[in-house]
């Protein structure tokens, strides 16, 4: 089996400061990788470099495209990269309002990606949007409501529906459960887990919440000061951390 994503030597500097330094890994189809670390550890910088939101200073992000096989998304043309981010890629923001159009109805939000790739049949777009609302547990009768009328958890679920409607193969998630109530988090995690399996999605999840990665991620990458300090199977890294920083991180989690 070939990797879906092959990342080699990604570095990003902010002047003299390190954003992230020399990060390399492979991600296989259906695999979920978590990136953990404290604020400022470079995990969001890395995610943004991978997703094409930031241009890395060095390195390659090779993605197994449907048509041409492995392509470096860092050096590919901007139209190609933007096309990729509308079709095979998805990005779930921490704050739903960064990932949603707040002045457009739920149906329009979900339908946008379909229309962006050429769907021109209103009835079919609406049917698909309604179907996706159902899959993220939003009632069909809310299809014409704007996200401003939704709760935080619903907005986040709407953002997920909007992202997954075109059947992407790789999803980037930046603190997907951040800022949500614990009970809402649980529901969201359950939903994400089901969708990941059902759609055989590959995902990269950035979070500082170790409970989130334990439930969602197959593998873990621990970052500190822009460097990857430890990688491995999620439960192994959490239960038998090797690096001092990881040990500190794991032992700092409050028990309930």
């Amino acid at each position, binding site marked *: 089996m070939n990797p879906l994503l092959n990342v080699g030597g990604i570095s990003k500097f902010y002047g003299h400061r390190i954003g992230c330094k020399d990060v390399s890994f492979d991600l*296989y189809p259906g695999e979920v990788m978590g990136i953990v670390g404290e604020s400022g550890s470079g995990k969001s910088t890395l995610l943004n470099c991978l997703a094409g939101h930031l241009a890395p200073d060095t390195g390659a992000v090779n993605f197994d495209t449907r048509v041409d096989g492995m392509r470096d998304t860092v050096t590919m043309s901007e139209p190609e990269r933007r096309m990729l981010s509308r079709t095979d890629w998805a990005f779930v923001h921490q704050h739903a309002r960064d990932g949603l159009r707040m002045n457009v109805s739920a149906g329009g939000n979900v339908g946008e990606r379909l229309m962006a790739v050429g769907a021109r049949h209103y009835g079919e777009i609406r049917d698909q949007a309604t179907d996706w609302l159902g899959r993220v547990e939003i009632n069909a009768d809310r299809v014409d409501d704007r996200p401003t009328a939704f709760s935080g958890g619903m907005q986040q679920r709407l953002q997920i529906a909007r992202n997954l409607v075109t059947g992407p193969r790789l999803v980037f998630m930046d603190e997907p459960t951040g800022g949500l109530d614990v009970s809402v988090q*649980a529901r969201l995690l*359950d939903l994400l887990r089901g969708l990941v399996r059902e759609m055989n999605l590959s995902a990269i999840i950035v979070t500082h919440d170790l409970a989130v990665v334990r439930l969602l991620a197959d593998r873990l990458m621990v970052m500190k000061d822009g460097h990857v300090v430890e990688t491995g*199977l999620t*439960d*192994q890294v959490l239960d038998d951390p090797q690096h001092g920083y990881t040990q*500190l991180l794991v032992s700092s989690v409050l028990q309930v």
Partner: protein
Amino acid sequence: MISIENVSKSFTLHNQGAATIPVMDGASLQVAPGECVALVGQSGSGKSTLMRMIYGNYLAAAGRIMIDDVDVASAAPREILQLRRYTLGYVSQFLRVVPRVPTVEVVADPLLATGAERGAALARAQVLLENLNIPERLWALSPTTFSGGEQQRVNIARGFAYNYPALLLDEPTASLDGKNREVVMAMIEEAKARGAAIIGIFHDEAARDRVCDREIDVTGFTPKAAA
């Protein structure tokens, strides 16, 4: 089926003066298909540590841990995940689940992960839950609120849902009453009969004597107090 050669393990506590605690050295053992081996030794002698290393949950410092043809000690995460999905089952002492997921789904989950048809997977889960005397009214609820004994039985049902060729059992009969204990013993015997290689930790001596073919005393793997 399971072959462990010269495995060692130590913990380095970086945040406590980088203290290194050797916990295991030269551990070796073999388990054939259809065989059940008990790990024995006093509390703290490393039974659970060894078991966790076999499952890939703890990282072995040296040696080889072969399950089929995969060396857990050196395999990539996705190889270990593949192994856990199709080959190696583990019944731990604690149930760890996603909140809100119904019990029947928790039990069917390992089958669904192998691509089993949903209806068949749920049917198998229901049979297991029924055999283990979990009342049907609880099946649709999340097991997070269950009693310790109920959680343990859900955990066992989950561990036995898929017919793994290799099984690790950590105290499967602890906190079970006589009736349920009997059910679990029968399940272990059934697994042996179909050819599963099993490694178990049993404090319950009667249970151990009944299902285990051999005992391995892990005290023998304790590092010699050289220092």
